């Protein structure tokens, strides 16, 4: 495997000099390498997730001997600083460097921006992290695929959890952001249909740093469940501050994407007992996952996070599909991937849906518990596995 982090020094100045000398620097089109352009966040809000995705992809490539179609695989990693503008810039650069597929990004805003370039330049685009439902819609982009979870899946599990726990009165807190707002509105509608009373709903700005007023309102309400539609720093701050008044002792705290090991590490003891949708988990019991977790531990001396697992899974699936086409034609890869099924994914069976390019898969619902080494101090335990038909709507054209 050849891994190069971003461009070599002086390439730019070199290229400029060469250009000026009229030597011409034609892009070598012959595929002596399989180039993957990875646009992930290595700094900014989601920097931690990008780093883990990189690790997952590297294990995926190593496991296949660093080759696909008989050629060595090269990944060029770029940092989008968790902002869409650099994501667009870096993607354009990667495409001009002749990458065969774009992998990323972390934040949905970046992924959506990349999606448009990929569509226009006809370059396959693989998403394994961003959960916004807008990324995989019927008649979306022919070139963009998502192998990871959607927010829609997670919200269905949250609803089902509400019913199962027989929660009667829900207080909802939502990050003031389109995707989470949509998700909350859906949940609210469905929950009310099921006879659940919504006793309060607040929308806090993205990046809010103090939830104590909202926590206090929840504590004084008669809610028996707290539904949190937020993620990242917002989620960590909210759950941490809820813990400061022991909100979780008397009420069930849950949300579609409210917790994973990364976020729980920031929350601390207050994360115990919080329920959340889980994208991927190292404890999933199947041979493919055992093999991956072992390889990951050997290489990095830690257990793979959900970001790492999803990245590994999506990339292995993609590379296997490319291998099977035996061709260097991107269109063939896209067509093949559209109809592919992965029986031995690390999360069980995954099937790509041709109509919207979303991988149908099991939904994992988990709860944070105290971890025992080598697991992190606060670790997710899978509480329930939902079959695909329970978490996905049929594809509506």
């Amino acid at each position, binding site marked *: 495997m050849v891994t190069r982090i971003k461009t070599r020094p002086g390439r730019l100045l070199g290229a400029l000099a060469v250009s000026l000398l009229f030597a011409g620097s034609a892009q070598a089109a012959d595929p002596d390498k399989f180039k993957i352009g990875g646009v992930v966040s290595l700094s900014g809000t989601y920097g931690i997730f990008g780093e883990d995705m990189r690790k997952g992809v590297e294990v995926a490539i190593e496991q296949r001997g660093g080759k696909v179609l008989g050629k060595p695989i090269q990944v060029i990693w770029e940092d989008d600083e968790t902002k869409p503008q650099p994501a667009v810039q870096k993607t354009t650069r990667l495409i001009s460097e002749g990458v065969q597929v774009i992998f990323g990004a972390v934040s949905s805003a970046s992924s959506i921006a990349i999606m448009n370039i990929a569509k226009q330049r006809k370059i396959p685009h693989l998403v394994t992290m961003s959960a916004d439902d807008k990324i995989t819609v019927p008649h979306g982009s022919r070139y963009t695929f998502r192998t990871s979870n959607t927010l829609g899946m997670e919200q269905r599990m949250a609803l089902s959890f509400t019913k199962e726990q027989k929660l009667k009165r829900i207080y909802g807190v939502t990050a003031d952001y389109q995707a989470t707002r949509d998700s909350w509105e859906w949940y609210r509608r469905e929950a009310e249909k099921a006879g659940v009373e919504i006793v309060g709903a607040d929308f806090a700005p993205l990046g809010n740093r103090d939830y104590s007023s909202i926590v206090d309102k929840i504590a004084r309400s008669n809610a028996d469940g707290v539904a949190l539609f937020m993620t990242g720093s917002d989620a960590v701050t909210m759950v941490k501050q809820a813990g400061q008044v022991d909100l979780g002792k008397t009420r069930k705290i849950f949300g579609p994407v409210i917790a994973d090991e990364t976020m729980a590490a920031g929350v*601390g003891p207050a994360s115990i007992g919080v329920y959340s949708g889980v994208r991927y988990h190292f404890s999933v019991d199947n041979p493919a996952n055992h093999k991956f977790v072992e390889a990951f531990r050997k290489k990095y001396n830690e257990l793979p996070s959900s970001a790492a697992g999803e990245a590994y899974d999506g990339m292995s699936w993609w590379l296997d599909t490319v291998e099977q086409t035996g061709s260097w034609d991107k269109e063939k890869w896209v067509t093949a991937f559209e109809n592919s099924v992965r029986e031995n994914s690390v999360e069980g069976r995954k099937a790509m849906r041709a109509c919207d390019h979303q991988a149908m898969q099991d939904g994992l619902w988990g709860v944070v518990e105290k971890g025992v080494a080598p697991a992190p101090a606060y670790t997710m335990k899978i509480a329930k596995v939902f079959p695909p038909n329970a978490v996905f709507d049929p594809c509506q054209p």
Partner: protein
Amino acid sequence: MSTLIIGLSLGMLLFLLASGLTLIFGMLGVINFAHGALYMLGAYIAFDIGRHTGSFVAGLIGATVLVALAGALIERLALRPLYDRPHFYQLILTFGVILVISEVVKVVWGLGYQESTMPPALAGTVDMFGSTIPVYRLFVIGFGALVSGGLFLLIEKSTFGMLVRAASSDGEMVRLLGLPVASVRMAVFALGSGLAGLAGAIAAPLFPIELGMATNTIIDCFIVVILGGLGNIRGAVAASLLIGLVRAIGYSYMPSWVDILTFSLLIATLLTRPQGLFFRATRSA
């Protein structure tokens, strides 16, 4: 009533954060964009000391002292040649400092969230006014009041304060009198930075510790400094408490409008009372 307690604790935390900034601005005329980064550094240091020694107090002291030292270093190496140049040079310089500090934090502590637990003595809750209030919030209020009192005495009543004020109003004259203006300036910058570190240590158990702290907080600090009047410590106390209360009430009733209202208030203040809401005829510390 619980809203009042929450508002006060938010306000005091804001004050701890902004006091260093307003001190540095008032005394040195320097806009320190890196103040948020110093605050973040304080939180990380407190977290790390706490993790290794198990002592909250050690973290508090360690963060204050180490960040103050970092501040002294920044002043000595970078800011000193810039006092006579226009403000925007300090702006770029301190912007550069943000990038350097963030890089250091990234290398030392990594990209992930860190978590620092409350000291056991302050970890409980008390029931007041029909709400459950974390003891730590009350501690923040008390501690903030203590620091603001101490600062006030230091600046207004002590010899050091007199020297600082003299140096800030006419540095050249003080220098001619044979007093060490350069050292005084360095001390002020170190003190302001130390306050940022202290704020970071106090905030560490309340918030997730992450790299975003550096840029998220600086705008909050500016709001307090502007509303309180540039360089006015008493004004900063009042402004912090006002903002804290407005936020606590705002978050209870219409959280998504809080920031918009805060900025509207800020603009109105800048236009009608540029010296701050609490300006009185003579400038105080």
